[in-house]
C-alpha cells in the first residue's frame, strides 16, 4: 500500500516531522489484528507555497535525512522491523513515466502561485469593473497585495482560489499516474490557518471529481480512500499590532470551516472523505512568535502534532471494508477523536491511553535509548565485542556520512523536537530532557527491582553492549548486511529485550 500523505501548510510540515520521529522509532501502521500493513510506502508531499517557512525547511531536511538513512539500512525493502521501519519515498522515486517532469523532492511545486501577488494571480487588473467590485468585496486590499510565496497568511479565501490550481500541476498528474488500487491518500492540515484550511477541501474535491481531469487512473483515483487529520486550534500567538493573523480569528475560522466540512466533506448523504480525525486541545499552548510568513514561520513542536502524526498511521491500518463499499465508493465517513487518559499539563507515557501507549511506548523508548547510546556509549565500544563481528564496525564508521547524518542531523533534530515539546504547553515529558542515565531517562518509569529484591535492574551502555554481543554472536545473518544495518538492528533487538526485561511494564 502506498499512502500519499499530503501535508498542507506549516501545521502539515510539523505533523510530518512528528511522523518522521515516530517512523524513525519504528512505529508502524498495523491492522485491527496488530499485524503491520504489508508493502507500505509513505509518499509525503508538502503543499506550502511558503517555501522559506522554517518548519517546512526543517521537515524537508529531516525527510531527506530519513530517506538517506533508511536507504543505507534497508535499500528498497519494505516490511522491515526496527528503527526507520516505514519506507518514505518521493513521488519522483516511485514514478516510472518519464514524460512528466517533476523534481525529486518532497515538496509540491507551486510555481504557478508562489511568485505572484494574489491580485495578479486572479487577473484583477484584467477584470471588468463589476468583477473587480465583487473581488474587492470578497478580498481585503492587503490580501490582494499579498505575495503568495509567504503563504496565505491565515486567509482561506485566498488559499481556496490558489490551491484550486494544483489539479493542473505535474505533481498531481504524477500522483494520478502512480496511484493504484489499494493506495490511500491522507491529508494533514490545520483548520484554522490559511493554506491548510483552504487546501484540504479543494484537493479532496479535485480528487473526487477527477473524472473531469485529463489524467491517468482517474477511476481509481476518484475512488481512493481518503482520510484527513484536521488540526483544531492549539497554539497561541504573541500579541502584535499587525492583525493579519489573529488568535481571535482562529475560533471563528474554525467554526465556519467545521460547518463547511460538515456540508462538503463528511455529509451524511455524500461523504467525500472516508475518515476524518479531529485533533485539538483546549489547553492553550505557549504563544508562538507572531510571524505571518516573512521571516520564516518556526514554531515549537507540540503534543497535538505528535498525536496528529498517529492519524495517518491509524488510517493506513483501517480495513478496506470499513472505508468503502464493494464498488469502491466511500462509506459514511469514519470520524476519530483523540483523548488523553489524564488531563494533565505535563504529559508522559502514563498520561496517554493504553492503546496509544501500546503503539508508541516501546518504539519511542528504544529510539531514545539509541539516541543516548550513540551519544554516550557507542564510540568507545568500537573495536570490541559485537563491533568486531562481521561486518566489522571500524573507527571509520563514525566519520561516515550515514553516521554523521544520523547523529549530527537526525538525532539533533530529535533532541530539538523533544525539547520543544517539553518546553511547550502541554509539556511533553516522555523522557527526562538532558538525562543521560538510561535508568532514569523514561519519565515516570523505573527499572525493575533487582532479582533478589535488592536495588534495581540496570540499563546502561554496558548492558547494551552485553546484549548486542550476545545477539551478534547468535546471528549469522549480519555478514551479508551493511554495518549500518547491523548496528541499528542489533541495538533494536537488544533494546527490545532490555526494555521488556528491565523496565517496569506500563503497557
Amino acid at each position, binding site marked *: 500500500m502506498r499512502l500519499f500523505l499530503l501535508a498542507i501548510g506549516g501545521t502539515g510540515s510539523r505533523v510530518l516531522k512528528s511522523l518522521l520521529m515516530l517512523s524513525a522509532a519504528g512505529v508502524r501502521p498495523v491492522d485491527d489484528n496488530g499485524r503491520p500493513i504489508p508493502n507500505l510506502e509513505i509518499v509525503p508531499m508538502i503543499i506550502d507555497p511558503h517555501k522559506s517557512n522554517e518548519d517546512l525547511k526543517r521537515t524537508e531536511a529531516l525527510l531527506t535525512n530519513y530517506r538517506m538513512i533508511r536507504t543505507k539500512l534497508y535499500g528498497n525493502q519494505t516490511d522491515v522491523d526496527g528503527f526507520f521501519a516505514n519506507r518514505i519515498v518521493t513521488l519522483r522515486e516511485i514514478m516510472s513515466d518519464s514524460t512528466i517532469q517533476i523534481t525529486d523532492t518532497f515538496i509540491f511545486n507551486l510555481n504557478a502561485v508562489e511568485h505572484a501577488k494574489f491580485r495578479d494571480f486572479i487577473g484583477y487588473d484584467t477584470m471588468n469593473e463589476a468583477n473587480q467590485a465583487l473581488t474587492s468585496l470578497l478580498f481585503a486590499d492587503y490580501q490582494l497585495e499579498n505575495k503568495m510565496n509567504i503563504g496565505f497568511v491565515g486567509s482561506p479565501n485566498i488559499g481556496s482560489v490558489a490551491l484550486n490550481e494544483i489539479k493542473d500541476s505535474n505533481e498531481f498528474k504524477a500522483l494520478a499516474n502512480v496511484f493504484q488500487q489499494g493506495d490511500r491518500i491522507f491529508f494533514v492540515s490545520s483548520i484554522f490557518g490559511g493554506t491548510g484550511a483552504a487546501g484540504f477541501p479543494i484537493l479532496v474535491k479535485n480528487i473526487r471529481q477527477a473524472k473531469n481531469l485529463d489524467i491517468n487512473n482517474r477511476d481509481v483515483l476518484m475512488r481512493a480512500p481518503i482520510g484527513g487529520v484536521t488540526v483544531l486550534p492549539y497554539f497561541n500567538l504573541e500579541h502584535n499590532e499587525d492583525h493579519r493573523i489573529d488568535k481571535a480569528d482562529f475560533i471563528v475560522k474554525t467554526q465556519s470551516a467545521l460547518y463547511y466540512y460538515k456540508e462538503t466533506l463528511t455529509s451524511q448523504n455524500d461523504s467525500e472523505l472516508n475518515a476524518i480525525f479531529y485533533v485539538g486541545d483546549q489547553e492553550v499552548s505557549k504563544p508562538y512568535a507572531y510571524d505571518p510568513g516573512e521571516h520564516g514561520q518556526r514554531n515549537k513542536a507540540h503534543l497535538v502534532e505528535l498525536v496528529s502524526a498517529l492519524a495517518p498511521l491509524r488510517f493506513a491500518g483501517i480495513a478496506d471494508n470499513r472505508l468503502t463499499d464493494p464498488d469502491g465508493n466511500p462509506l459514511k465517513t469514519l470520524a476519530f477523536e483523540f483523548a488523553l487518559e489524564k488531563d494533565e499539563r505535563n504529559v508522559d507515557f502514563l498520561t496517554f491511553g493504553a492503546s496509544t501507549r501500546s503503539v508508541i511506548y516501546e518504539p519511542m523508548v528504544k529510539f531514545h535509548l539509541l539516541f543516548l547510546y550513540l551519544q554516550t556509549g557507542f564510540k568507545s565500544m568500537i573495536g570490541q*565485542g559485537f563491533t*568486531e563481528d562481521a561486518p566489522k564496525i571500524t573507527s571509520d564508521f563514525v566519520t561516515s556520512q550515514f553516521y554523521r547524518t544520523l547523529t549530527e542531523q537526525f538525532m539533533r533534530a530529535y533532541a530539538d523536537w523533544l525539547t520543544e515539546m517539553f518546553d511547550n504547553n502541554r509539556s511533553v515529558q516522555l523522557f527526562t530532557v538532558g538525562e543521560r542515565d538510561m535508568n532514569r531517562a523514561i519519565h515516570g518509569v523505573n527499572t525493575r527491582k533487582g532479582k533478589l529484591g535488592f536495588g534495581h535492574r540496570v540499563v546502561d551502555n*554496558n548492558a547494551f553492549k*552485553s546484549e548486542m*554481543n*550476545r545477539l551478534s*554472536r547468535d546471528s549469522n545473518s549480519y555478514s551479508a548486511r551493511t554495518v549500518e544495518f547491523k548496528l541499528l538492528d542489533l541495538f533494536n533487538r537488544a533494546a527490545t529485550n532490555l526494555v521488556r526485561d528491565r523496565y517496569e511494564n506500563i503497557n
Partner: protein
Amino acid sequence: MKQQHLIYLILGIAATALFVLFGEWCYELHYVNGFSDDMHNYELNTTVSVITALVPWAAAGIYYYAINSVRFDRWYHWLVVLALVMLITPVAGYMVTDSVMADNGKSYVAESVTFELLNMLWAAVLFVVASFSMRWWSSNCRHTPIPQ
C-alpha cells in the same frame, strides 16, 4: 557457530590431551638427574600435567563463560587472567610435588622451583590454547584478547 571454530576447539582439546599424555616428555625437555626420575616414579609428571591442563582450561572457561563481562573484555583483562594462571598453576604444582616428595622423604626445592618456572610457560601456552579453543562462543569476550 562456524565450522572453523569447531575445528579450533577440537585441535585445542587434542593439543591439551597430547600435552597430558606426553607431559613427561614435555617436562623432561629439561631433564634433571634424580629429580626427573622421582617425578616419573611418583607419577608426578602426569599429576602436574593434569593440573597444568586443568587450571588454564578452567580459567579460560571461567573467563569466557562465567565472568563473560563487558567490563572485563579487553586484552589486558585477559592478560590478568593469564597472569593468574601463571601464578596458580605453578603454585598448585609445587604444592602437590612437594607434598608427595616430602611423603617419600625427598626434598627438591631448587629443582621444583625451576620445574614450576618452566611449567609456568606450559600453563601460559595452554591458556592460550584453551582461550583460542573456547572463546568463539563467549557472548562478550569472543574477541578477546585479539579480535577474530
